[in-house]
């Protein structure tokens, strides 16, 4: 599932970048991103954060943020749903894109993905029809995907001649080429052209594969070729092909078993012991080792080594008994929580559980139903973790809304009081009056109006003295005093006139400063009033939304956990069924070993002349 998912994702990348990561080097330059939201989607997608990318796509669509990448976004969305196993949703998206009259390049890609969905659903005729709708605008890097898909659809339909023609002289790039050759070999063999098919496999199985994926394909080609040659009686050729299968790969067991039979075919039983002994020592969990343990004493018997044969059967019986004990332990573990731990663990990582159970489960074939259910369980666990995370986040959001409400309730009355008591209007009225007065003073040109308090006191004293002097009897003293008063009055008037421009300017400046201060105070007042008005928007209405979301989270969590329980039950049943099947097989090996052992003993105690040519029963092994 993981591997398949990655491969699919790599191909999905091609729909965006027009460069399949699986087959070609990365593009020299990234595509031009014209909407930031699209860039964010790609950032998540290229980190294989499938759900993150889907959610960001949905958000961007809701906010209408993908004006320049709408078609690409739909293609990616469909592809992501497909990679997540949601074929119906993906198909709906691709059909909608076609119905909306997308540009030809996008239409061709949509038809490709629809073909792929049909093929995955085993609707091969519909897949072929969808492939036929692809025009000339499919991005070039997707041509390899298309050819590969078409060949697989035709293979599925049994149209082998067409596959042979389709893949003749193909120019598939990189890794695609090896797969095309393999598929062509399959088609050739099905049409009866076994010679050319074997030639193709032989070519495919030679050389050093640059990647693990290709090495696996090479192993498969060599094993197929080896088995075919063995069947055709070409034991030498079979051994050559089987020896090319890697010993650390998943096909090693079958290759070693077949290699032994290739030697046995030529009655080279001692040579057969080589691969079989090697396989018996591997102790793998898929049972091939036990088959080899039975084949080894059989070979010893063929070369008339009864002692070794007896020893070998005894070892096989002991190994089968030990294997049965291990299987019993594994069955017990599968009935407990360890199975769930194993199912949820990353299959690419070392086992998280001790004991024999992991080895049996990891040895299951990639298409074994156990793997699909385990993959679903991992998906369900990821959904559960996501929901638990939201449950925590919603709690925090609820607290924050409550804190905002409390804070508002605390500061709002004070702020309202401040607004009520700020006296700003009274100050504005005074400012207006002062402005009017200054204007009148300037119009009247009255310097005394801007006199300082000391000068005003002097002016008052001068007025008082003038009245008193006027009340004196006429005479020299009164004139002298009057003269002195006029001089003082003149000096004061000179001073007032001299200071007048500066004082008028200062007064005007002070008024302007007051004006600015009033404007600032008004802005602050407006800001405070706006904050007061907007304050409730920070918490009002959110309680209901958070509560509704929390209810959705709880409801989904309950469904996820219920489904987890149901699927785990299925997983347990599958695991136990598989282990019991193995138990039956091993019990059969044990029976064979014991029977062969008894027969070998019987023969060992009889004189050779009395035994004739009757050998002990041979193991029922197949390569």
């Amino acid at each position, binding site marked *: 599932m993981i591997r*398949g998912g990655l*491969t*699919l994702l790599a191909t999905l990348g091609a729909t965006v970048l027009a460069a399949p990561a*699986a087959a070609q080097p*990365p593009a*020299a*330059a*990234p595509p031009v991103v014209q909407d*930031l939201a699209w*860039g*964010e989607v*790609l*950032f*998540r*997608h290229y*980190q294989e954060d499938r*759900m993150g990318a889907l*959610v960001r796509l*949905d*958000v961007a669509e*809701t*906010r209408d943020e993908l004006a320049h990448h709408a078609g690409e976004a739909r293609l990616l969305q469909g592809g992501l749903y497909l990679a997540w*196993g*949601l074929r119906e949703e993906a198909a709906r998206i691709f059909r909608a894109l076609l119905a909306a009259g997308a540009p030809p390049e996008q239409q061709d890609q949509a038809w490709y993905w629809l073909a*792929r969905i049909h093929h995955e659903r085993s609707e091969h005729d519909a897949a072929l029809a969808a492939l036929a709708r692809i025009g000339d605008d499919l991005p070039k890097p997707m041509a390899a*995907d298309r050819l*590969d*898909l078409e060949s*697989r659809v035709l293979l599925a339909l049994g149209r082998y001649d067409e596959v042979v023609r389709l893949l003749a002289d193909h120019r598939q790039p990189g*890794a*695609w080429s090896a*797969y095309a050759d*393999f*598929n062509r070999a*399959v088609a050739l063999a*099905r049409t009866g052209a*076994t010679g050319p098919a074997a030639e193709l496999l032989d070519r495919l199985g030679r050389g050093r594969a640059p990647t693990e994926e290709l090495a696996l394909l090479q192993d498969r080609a060599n094993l*197929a*070729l080896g*088995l*075919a040659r063995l*069947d055709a009686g070409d034991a030498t050729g079979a051994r050559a092909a089987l020896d090319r299968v890697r010993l650390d790969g998943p096909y090693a067991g079958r290759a070693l078993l077949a290699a032994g*039979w290739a030697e046995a075919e030529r009655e080279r039983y001692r040579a057969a012991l080589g691969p079989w002994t090697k396989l018996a020592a591997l102790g793998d969990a898929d049972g091939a080792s036990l088959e080899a343990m039975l084949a080894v004493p*059989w070979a010893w018997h063929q070369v008339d080594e009864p002692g070794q044969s007896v020893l070998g059967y005894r070892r096989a019986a002991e190994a089968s008994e030990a294997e049965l004990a291990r299987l019993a332990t594994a069955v017990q573990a599968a009935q407990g929580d360890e199975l769930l731990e194993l199912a949820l663990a990353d299959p690419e990582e070392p086992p998280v559980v001790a004991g024999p159970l992991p080895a049996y489960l990891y040895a299951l074939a990639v298409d074994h139903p156990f793997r*699909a259910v385990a*993959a679903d369980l991992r*998906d369900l666990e990821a959904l559960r973790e*996501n929901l638990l995370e*939201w449950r925590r986040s919603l709690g925090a959001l609820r607290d*924050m809304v409550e804190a905002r409400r409390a804070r508002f309730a605390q500061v709002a009355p004070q702020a309202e009081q401040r607004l009520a008591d700020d006296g700003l209007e009274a100050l504005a009225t005074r400012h207006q009056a002062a402005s009017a007065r200054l204007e009148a003073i300037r119009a009247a040109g009255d310097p005394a109006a801007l006199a300082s308090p000391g000068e005003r006191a002097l002016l008052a004293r001068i007025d008082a003295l003038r009245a008193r002097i006027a009340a004196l009897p006429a005479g020299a003293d009164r004139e002298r005093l009057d003269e002195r008063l006029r001089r003082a009055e003149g000096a004061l008037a000179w001073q007032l006139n001299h200071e007048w421009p500066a004082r008028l300017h200062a007064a005007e400046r002070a008024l302007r400063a007051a004006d600015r201060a009033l404007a600032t105070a008004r802005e602050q007042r407006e800001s405070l009033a706006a904050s007061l008005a907007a304050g409730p928007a*920070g918490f009002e209405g959110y309680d209901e939304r958070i509560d509704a*979301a929390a209810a*959705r989270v709880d409801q989904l969590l309950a469904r996820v956990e219920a*489904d987890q329980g149901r*699927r785990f039950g299925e997983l347990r049943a599958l695991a136990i069924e598989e282990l019991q099947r193995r138990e039956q097989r091993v019990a059969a090996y044990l029976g064979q070993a014991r029977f062969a052992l008894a027969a070998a003993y019987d023969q060992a105690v009889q004189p050779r002349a009395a035994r004739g040519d009757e050998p*002990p029963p*041979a*193991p*029922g092994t*197949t390569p």
Partner: protein
Amino acid sequence: MAAGKPPARRALVAALALLATLAAPAAAQAPAPDAELRALKQELVALNRDLFLLEEELLFPASTQVAVYLSMDVGKYFALDAVEVAINDERVAKYLYTEREVDALHRGGVHRLYLGNLKTGPHELVAVLVGRGPQGREYRRAASLQFEKGLGPQQLELVLRDSEALQQPTFQVRTWE
């Protein structure tokens, strides 16, 4: 099986049929989950979308929202390690990039490295990129931008590009409308 005879074997067709179950790189595909799991996945996407919107609306209202993004091209002259962002002399983000994230950036991904709130009015953003230059030596580039925060959300993008003419990376900050 009779002794002395090889075991049952299969012809080439059968051998290939046995081994051709995964005959193509794209053939290994995700199994279709059952109906309930499919429904749950779809509902989870919708729920995450709604909660994403709710959270952002609550924590970063449009009137005060400011987001800073980073994008880059192939990175021939600069291998990105980290980015620091300061707004009005206050550091608001420091991010260390993994190889996987840098790869996603090279392929066209855009990373939102900061989302926060700012009052309307003038502000200054300073960003410093840390990484390795063509000879593998540590390399720091800084860029700044004076911007005016308006009434709507403000989006800023740190753009790192290779300049063939200058034989070095160029770094600038751009505003999005």
